[in-house]
């Protein structure tokens, strides 16, 4: 059980790392948001899953309830995080930021 | 090392306080001043909450089994709740002040069309 938890946490951290690198290194606003939105959501989900499993070294009602709550958080993140990304990108689009095309643009988040 | 740990929180609160105070007095932009004000207030909250922390103590909610009668409560086992209560109040006060300060900023911007202190002074 512990090994699974560790593996999941490490995966999540890797994704977080990738997200951060993407956020910093990608050329324009849209691809940066792309990295942030996707990587962030996935790694949060994975780390929450790890927490659920970690919580279960002793199975009883209280732990089950906590696990349920964590899963609920996961569901809400799954709904809210992509929407937020969408909203930001949409706002960027509306305020006229052009996508990257070989020659670097000035971006303003 | 031990001495650093035992005062690091206090040093940081002092540093935050200085940052906030500097921003409140030196910045030209009104919203920046308000941000400085918020930092200043959170610095004090850091200070108070630090006074309540205890080593090897958990959150101040007494573990209670459903229906079970507890043994005597071990004081060293729970963090000091009093600073937490005080700081709840302080946080609420600071958001109140923030709201009023921002409202005044908006009012000023509406009248003088600027948030820069010197530009406003010129118009007076």
């Amino acid at each position: 059980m512990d090994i699974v938890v560790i593996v999941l946490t490490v995966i999540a951290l890797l994704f977080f790392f990738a997200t951060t690198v993407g956020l910093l290194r990608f050329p324009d606003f849209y691809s940066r948001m792309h990295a942030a939105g996707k990587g962030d959501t996935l790694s949060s989900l994975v780390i929450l899953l790890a927490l659920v499993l970690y919580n279960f070294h002793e199975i009883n009602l209280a732990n089950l309830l906590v696990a349920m709550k964590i899963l609920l958080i996961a569901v809400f993140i799954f709904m809210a995080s992509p929407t937020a990304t969408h909203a930001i990108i949409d706002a960027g689009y509306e305020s006229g930021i052009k996508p990257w095309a070989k020659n670097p643009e000035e971006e303003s988040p | 090392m031990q001495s650093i740990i035992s005062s690091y929180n206090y040093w940081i609160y002092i540093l935050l306080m200085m940052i906030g105070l500097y921003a409140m007095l030196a910045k030209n932009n009104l919203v920046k001043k308000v941000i400085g004000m918020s930092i200043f207030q959170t610095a004090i909250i850091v200070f108070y909450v630090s006074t309540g922390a205890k080593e090897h103590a958990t959150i101040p909610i007494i573990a209670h089994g459903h229906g079970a009668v507890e043994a005597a409560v071990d004081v060293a086992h729970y963090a000091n709740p009093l600073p937490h209560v005080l700081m709840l109040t302080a946080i609420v006060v600071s958001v109140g002040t923030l709201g009023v300060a921002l409202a005044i900023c908006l009012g000023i911007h509406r009248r003088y069309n600027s948030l820069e202190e010197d530009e406003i002074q010129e118009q007076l």
Partner: protein
Amino acid sequence: MIWQLDLSILTLIVICAFATIMVKDLLSAAIIFGAYSFLMCLLWTEMGAVDVAFTEASVGAGVSTVLFFAAVHQTTRRVRTRKSGRMLAKVFALMAALLTGLVLIIAETDFPGFASPFTPASLHLSPYYITQSLHDTNVPNIVTSVLADYRGFDTMFETAVIFTAGLAVIAILRRYKRDDRCDLPEPYVISEGYPDTIIRFIARQLAPFIQLFALYVVAHGHHSPGGGFQGGVILGASFILLAISYDSRMIIGIMSERLNILLGNIGVLIYAGIGFLCLLLGANFLDYSVLSKVLPATDKIMARSHGMLGIEIGVAIAVMAIVISIYLNIISHGKYDKG
């Protein structure tokens, strides 16, 4: 208490504070300030102050940031790059800050060590609260019992502070009729919403859950972190979410200005009223134990617990109404376009 975490979070906090002050764009400053608040919130969880962390998460990181956004949105983002003036003010401010820092450092040398369990602060009053709370009030969350009972009077005025702030914002900003001096549209008359189906759909789906969670936080404050303030702020935030994703007019449709003011009043009135009821029943102000005379099937200790629940509900109502009211007043000053 994990000191490594403590140290690293504190360092990050200082970096955030510097960045907030230095950055030239007000919107970025507001975002960094949000991050700063979240780090604070982590720090407090780490120090065992979960209730404070919860409040900071909902109030500091949530509402404050939204208010900053709204204010910046209504004014201007740019901080003018300065002419080389204000040297005097800067030097003066630097001196003041350094002096304060110096004085505080001197005071710091006398402090008992951080996180020691043997400080006066941990030995004088708090043992009483920790050992007696459950016995006196039947509330396991000591912070709630101290907040709402032992120091309930503070909390009543804390609610009054929020109420005052709401009123103050109305008093400063609200315009009832067209004023020739300003060419901005009247408040509460807002341009077209932001037509985006996805955001609207998700917001509409999430809002009831947020409200449900808020009610849970209010009702469960006796046993877990949370209580009236946090619950009230979250309730208010759910409306603000709708206001951002649809437009403010919809929220005004649900919560008209009059209703809002009325609710803010009623919230504080519930609190003060419960206190006053205690007076009428012959005890001191806010002495809930006397409520057992009017509540069926409660002894004095449970009466305290119920009294606290009552005031938490009052606080939640007041805080919700005021948060919405402050937001609406600040956001509705100009053209409302997008989230």
